[in-house]
């Protein structure tokens, strides 16, 4: 199976080790990745989707057309990119007038959107296309003996009929099963489905409250679980959940919040035998406690 890899901005620019992890493990699991050359911003919700429909959908259309020309679906790791592309595609596909306008704008660029390529999240490909059992059968190392918690990317859950792939967006199972496939024991906790709070303008507009909001989540993790790591599946979750722990430590004056955070693809690549140096090297919360135990 061939998929067009849409990297977005943050992953290749700030966390290329996650990109490396995806590029490493996907082919092992039978997915060939082709690059989306000349792609542009997804666009982020705070950008063109917040200014006007034309610029929003034209930008979505630009990206969608790249995959269509390659004749395959798009695979995305970033939650925001995924949601923005899917919503953009939804608008284009369900409103003929919008589709016409997008194609009118795209025409001089030699592009066109028909809707032949779907937008897929990397966790959906792993969960639905490859499956936890296959993954469990392919891994060379495992997270056995370790406890983890999972962070579902909101953007892959809501609104379920546009972006969803879980049987139930209110009681999702995918991330849990994927982490379990790597041999870890997944702990449940009360605020498992609470948003990380890192996307959009919440942190920018009211940082105090946004940090408090995140704190409630980390406090619940610490109080209710024996977790060794947090597995996320969205670049924003990854960066925010690391950064906020450092901020919180400064605030409380002790190193209370130091749970390693991994993108799932990083854990997967590690278990498939790839080097942590390559696939899980960039972080500001030490991952040593986990890396040393992967065997």
């Amino acid at each position, binding site marked *: 199976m061939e998929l067009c890899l849409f990297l977005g901005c943050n992953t290749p620019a700030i966390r290329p080790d996650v990109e490396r992890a995806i590029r490493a493990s996907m082919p092992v699991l039978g997915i060939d990745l082709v690059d989306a050359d000349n792609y542009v911003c997804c666009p982020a919700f705070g950008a063109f989707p917040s200014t006007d429909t034309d610029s929003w959908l034209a930008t979505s259309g630009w990206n969608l057309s790249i995959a269509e020309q390659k004749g395959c679906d798009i695979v995305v790791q970033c939650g925001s990119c995924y949601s923005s592309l899917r919503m953009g595609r939804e608008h284009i596909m369900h409103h003929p007038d919008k589709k016409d306008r997008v194609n009118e704008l795209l025409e001089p660029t030699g592009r066109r959107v028909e809707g032949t390529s779907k937008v897929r999240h990397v966790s959906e490909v792993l969960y639905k296309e490859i499956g936890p059992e296959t993954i469990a059968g392919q891994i060379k190392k495992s997270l056995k003996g370790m406890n983890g918690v999972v962070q579902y990317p909101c953007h892959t859950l809501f609104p*379920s009929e546009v972006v969803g792939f879980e049987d139930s*967006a*209110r009681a999702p199972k995918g991330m849990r099963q994927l982490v379990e496939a790597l041999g870890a024991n997944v702990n449940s906790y*009360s605020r498992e489905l609470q948003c990380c709070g890192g996307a959009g303008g919440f942190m920018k507009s009211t940082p105090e409250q946004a940090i408090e909001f995140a704190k409630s989540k980390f406090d619940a993790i610490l109080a209710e679980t024996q977790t060794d790591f947090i597995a996320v599946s969205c670049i924003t979750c990854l960066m925010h959940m690391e950064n906020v722990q450092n901020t919180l430590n400064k605030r409380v004056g002790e190193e209370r919040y130091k749970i390693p955070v991994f993108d799932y693809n990083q854990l997967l690549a590690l278990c498939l035998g790839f080097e942590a140096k390559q696939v899980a090297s960039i972080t500001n919360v030490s991952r040593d406690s986990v890396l040393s135990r992967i065997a």
Partner: protein
Amino acid sequence: MAEKKPTGTVLVAGAGISGIKAAIELAEVGYKVLLTDASTQIGGILAKLDYQFPTDHCGMCRMLPMVGREYSSQYCMRKSLFHENIEIMPFAEIQAVHGDAGNYKVDLLKRARYVDPLLCNELEECIAVCPVEVADEFNHGLTKRKAIYQAIPHNTPKLLAIDKQACTNCGECVKVCTPGAINLGAQDEMVTREVQSIILASGVKLYNTTEFEDAKSYAVSPDVVSSLAFERMMSSSGSYRDGEIKRPSDGQPAKNIAWIQCMGSRNRRQKRDYCSSICCMFALKEAVLAKEKGGPGVESTIFYMDMRTFGKGFQQYRDDAVEKHGVNLIRCRVQGVMRNPDGSLQIRYFDPETNEFVIKDYDLVVLSTGQIPYETHKKWADLLNVKLDSRGLLATEDYSKIRLAGKPGLFICGSLMGLTDVSEAMSSGIAAAGEATKFLTGIGADTVKEEEIAEPTAHERELSLVSVAICKCGEKTGANGIDYELLSAELQRYRGVGEVNVIDSMCKENGETAALDILSKTKCNRLLIGACQPFMYRQNLKNVARKAGFNSSLVEVFDLFGIARKGMTLPSNKEWTLRAAHEVKADIEKLKFKPALHVSTLPINQTALVVGGGIGGMQSALSLAARGVPVHLVEKDGQLGGYLGNNVEATVDGLAPMAMAKDMQLKVYQNKNITVHLNCEAEGTVGTLGSFESKLVYKDSDEKIYLHHGAAIMATGGHEGATSEYGLGSSNLIMTQGQLKKGLASGDIDVGGAENIVMIQCVGSRQKEGRHYCSRICCMWAIANALKIKEKNPDARVFILYRDVMTYGFYEQYYSKARTAGIIFMNYSLDNKPQMEMVEGKPVVKFMDSILNEEIELPADLLVLSTGVDPEESNSKLAKAFKVALNDDGFFAEADSKWRPIEFQQVGLYLAGTAHSPMPLKSVIMQAEAAAQKAYAYLSGREVHTSSVISKVKDALCIRCQRCVNICPYGARSYDDMEKCINVDPAACQACGMCAVECQNNAAEVTGWSDKQLLSVIDAKLMDELLLSPVE
């Protein structure tokens, strides 16, 4: 016409309360009923409810007939139903319906129960040995049951069944079943039945918290339960123990309980843009009960959107819940429930009182889960080959909630019409029976002719001599080891016993013949029958006895089988046969001293009086007249039609009351059975029980006539209320909804140039000073008017200031329609009512917008007031004349707010429509049909059979203290001021014995329960105890 007409038979599909009510009403008229239910038992949802609003008790038995009690079995309705004309077929599903109106052939699939109820001895040894345990669905999984089980724990007879899905076929139950009632290889069976008419009463599926997607954000723990499951947590046959509500997860007491309303309802996203009508009252009741029954410190909180207290007495109940019981009501729909590590449940909500977010923990969360109508409606539509309406519901005829469109002889009732409360279920069940009765009359179907058996009088006054007949129930009791020879011998020796006969299977035809044969030769004048399940066979056995020449009051049936079972713990057959014999002796004593009682019959005058010539009154009159009953229709005004018929051109749901009234008026005047009296009021009424004489006074001429009638229906209607608030009458820019409606229809009110139109709901309503009730129709009226304004002037902004939008049930669609038409709804609370000030001749309305938490000032081009519905002033005069009660609000007080909504306590008097309480037109028509049916059923009996067992007054002992009058729950006792004595209405008396208990002077007595009888029963019991105690 010598040809024998077929006996009218009606299939009632669904044995919930509306189906049962329809069945009883039809059976009482004399039609045969086949009452089926898809579940293993009868009772529907109500079987799960121990408590109902407003009494917070059960009261289901109040739907049984109140007169002629000798002719139907009186038994706890939650346990079972027995009626000669009703055949009950549970666990049966309708597979196909062939044929046409008046001649339906129905294929029914009788599901295998694997336990033959006729053979089962109810000893439950099978249940004890069954090794399979599964969650008990009756208790919503709060308890466990076996694979062989009784679905409803309080049902009688027990009706066991095997859940084949759970059963492992191990055969343990078969081994211990001595009567051989269990057949693990039993097969489903297809039967075909012919019926003339079908009433669909299959109810509605309720939203299940585990099956549906949107509940998953809430149902995060076993301590989040549905409202029906909570009922089981409040029941001692569920999980209620030690005066505490137990949290399902760990059995700890639940103290802080939250209800979340509209779960699965009022949800456009889930394609359920309707309200489930009953959940608000359901939650209020549960919240109050939790505080009463949950032990000290229980806090009840309800999260709601609109508290829909639209029915009679609902608003008072809400006010009491809040003020007397301290139930918290919070207007906020929450996004989900979070389970804390300690198991408690966290809810975050926005408190509209403080405009702050609040995070609070609860021990238990109850989801008020609503109805899912579409599946059920689709199923019926496919089966009956009828069309669904645009919303996917079964289409009924215009103006009718009961008659299926295009299918004569097919009717619906109960929650199939949309989830209904008990009162509406009752009204609809009666109305459906009424429609079926009219239909059967129309096609010439006959009623069951009662067998005329003269009540024998011979031997009555001779010395008491008791004949004891013991039914040898074949395998049943025999297998349990009764020693019949010993039993006979023992009883034979007892003083006062003339003979003892052992007869086999008296419930079957050959047993009956044998009994008749033996008993018709007897010299005894009293008969004691020992048989199984007397509540089931009592009537049959009594009929046999009557045929054999016994006065039925001198025949008693006792539960031989029950006695036998008690004996099981004793070591030997002999010992417990003796025990059984001693038990029987008490019955013999009671019978020995019993006087012969006679049912008295009083002729019923065949004329009906209908008071009120509005749409409801006309509907009742036409319905009765159609069945040949002469009706006098009395209207106090100079024309028929009432308020709706003379003032309202169109309703929000597309009905045209004025056109309809015109049409009905024509039919009324053309009908030879109806005499119309205009400008006329009924003033004084004398007589009772089938023979009333009412004085009718013509207002214009002062002429009086006296009318004899057997029944009367109060259909006095109501009218738009008045108010002195908001400057009504001071400016032509301020008007009521009624005035606006008329003005819009006639064109007198022009909204063409209007920019802002403000409507204020609940003016003078739902508050203690004023109308302490919701008028139910005002929200719909306001919406209808607002939509009309939008139609005429789309640029006009219409603001509806409301307290709770009462668009209950499928009326919700009009609320949605109004919002999408741009009508703006803004909530206000009673303690912060909108204010009005005239500025430069224009009303300026000031009010608090609860959403933005800001005061809004709005100059209105029109200010429209919803002033509610007032009852007719004439109600008080009528109430006095007919000696019936009014409630505090001036509406008539029905016999029982839930179970007898359209009857008065007094037999022969009924009520319908707005005389009962404000209601929409379709409900008025339904009640009018129901009242007509009640009156018809009563009149068609031609005579009243009073019960033989009633209370009496020993006048010589009576000191006229009237304590008995006050305590009588049936209003059967009254003090006669003229004669200075206590009277007992023999038809109203239900022989409950309250008067006898209350009377300090032994002056009140229930016949057949004399002190002498009871004392000798006690003597016999004590003697038995002495004899049985081991003296050696």
